[in-house]
């Protein structure tokens, strides 16, 4: 460090502008100098340091966002509807998809990419001769990302497929931040979870195009207040359509299929 700077720091001087004080600057000119700059100052009598401030403005999830846009273009180009299905573990994603493949899947060709940390249990549950299914095991990763989807989409035959369901890892937090290139994001809230889930985990509900209130067949036994749950969803996610469904007794399932039909891209 140069002796002048050391001297200034040692004296602990104060500056008290009496008039025409400079507006507070976002730059902290008096902060400690980095070791390299101090060394450069000390070694060069001219003491010149070139400082460059550059506006970068790059989104931090840039890489995922670019890959997601590429996926989206790819899916649209193939004329298929891609849905990202997210919820807590155990709220009925796989059960809903089983029924959907058995009914809607006979009407329109479907494919499924399903993510879990470990096991291919869900992939095996969803395995149907008429639908391509790939299991993505993420290891320790708590969400799917666009790169995983790009790789998995290459691994299954998408010829003639009109609807691609992407069953995300059961998690109500992280998947909210990762665009997979889907056209529609579906968030499930099951009656076993409590009416205030949307208030407790707002970001994921905020990002939903459709919220499915699932397991309505057992709502009464649980003392679950469906109207309150729907009210909470509407407060947090006014942009989302809400359908109450039971994959077991079929309530609301036709409305879910109608939702899918209405969003199918034009046949190529």
């Amino acid at each position, binding site marked *: 460090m140069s002796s002048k700077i050391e001297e200034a720091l040692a004296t602990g001087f104060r500056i008290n502008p009496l008039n025409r004080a400079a507006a507070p600057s976002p730059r902290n000119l008096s902060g400690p100098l*980095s070791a390299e*700059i101090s060394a450069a100052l000390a070694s060069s009598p001219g003491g010149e*340091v*070139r400082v460059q*401030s*550059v506006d970068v403005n790059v*989104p931090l999830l840039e890489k995922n966002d670019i890959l997601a846009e590429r996926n989206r273009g790819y899916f649209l180009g193939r004329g298929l509807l891609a849905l990202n299905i997210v919820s807590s573990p155990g709220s009925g994603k796989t059960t809903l998809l089983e029924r959907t493949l058995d009914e809607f899947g006979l009407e329109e060709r479907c494919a499924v990419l399903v993510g879990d940390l470990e096991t291919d249990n869900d992939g095996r549950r969803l395995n149907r001769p008429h639908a391509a299914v790939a299991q993505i095991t993420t290891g320790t990763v708590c969400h799917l990302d666009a790169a995983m989807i790009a790789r998995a989409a290459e691994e299954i035959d998408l010829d003639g497929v009109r609807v691609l369901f992407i069953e995300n890892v059961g998690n109500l937090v992280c998947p909210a931040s990762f665009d997979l290139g889907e056209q529609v994001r579906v968030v499930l809230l099951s009656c076993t979870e409590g009416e205030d889930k949307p208030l407790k985990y707002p970001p994921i509900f905020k990002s939903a195009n459709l919220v499915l209130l699932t397991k309505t067949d057992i709502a009464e036994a649980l003392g679950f207040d469906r109207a309150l749950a729907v009210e909470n969803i509407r407060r*947090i996610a006014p942009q989302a359509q809400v359908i109450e469904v039971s994959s077991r007794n079929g309530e609301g399932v036709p409305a879910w299929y109608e939702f899918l039909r209405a969003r199918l891209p034009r046949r190529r």
Partner: protein
Amino acid sequence: MESALAIVSREAASHGAARVERVTLRVGAISGVEPEALRFAFEALSPGTVAEGAQLDIDLVPARAHCAECDKDFTIESGFLFECPVCRAFSGDVRSGRELDLARLEFSTPTTPDHVLQN
């Protein structure tokens, strides 16, 4: 934070900078990112990179939503209930607050004055 540091390295290289003095991130109020967690990650991951020792600034962007009833934007003071302060309607039309960007970088390159080179 790893992707932030990757972008920092890339930008530093493209500007021929040896060192990054300051990294400014722009973080929206509803981006789902905790500034304290970002600071922790920066301190944990920046050593050994071109950003080692740089100051991390975080510009917080308030969340704003648009009310369709009033045709006006309003600021969301806190939480995730986007209720118009005028007509009390709930809005899902978020106009800002989701940002998570690398906003600005400050590089410094010590330059050697001519008279030193002549010696």
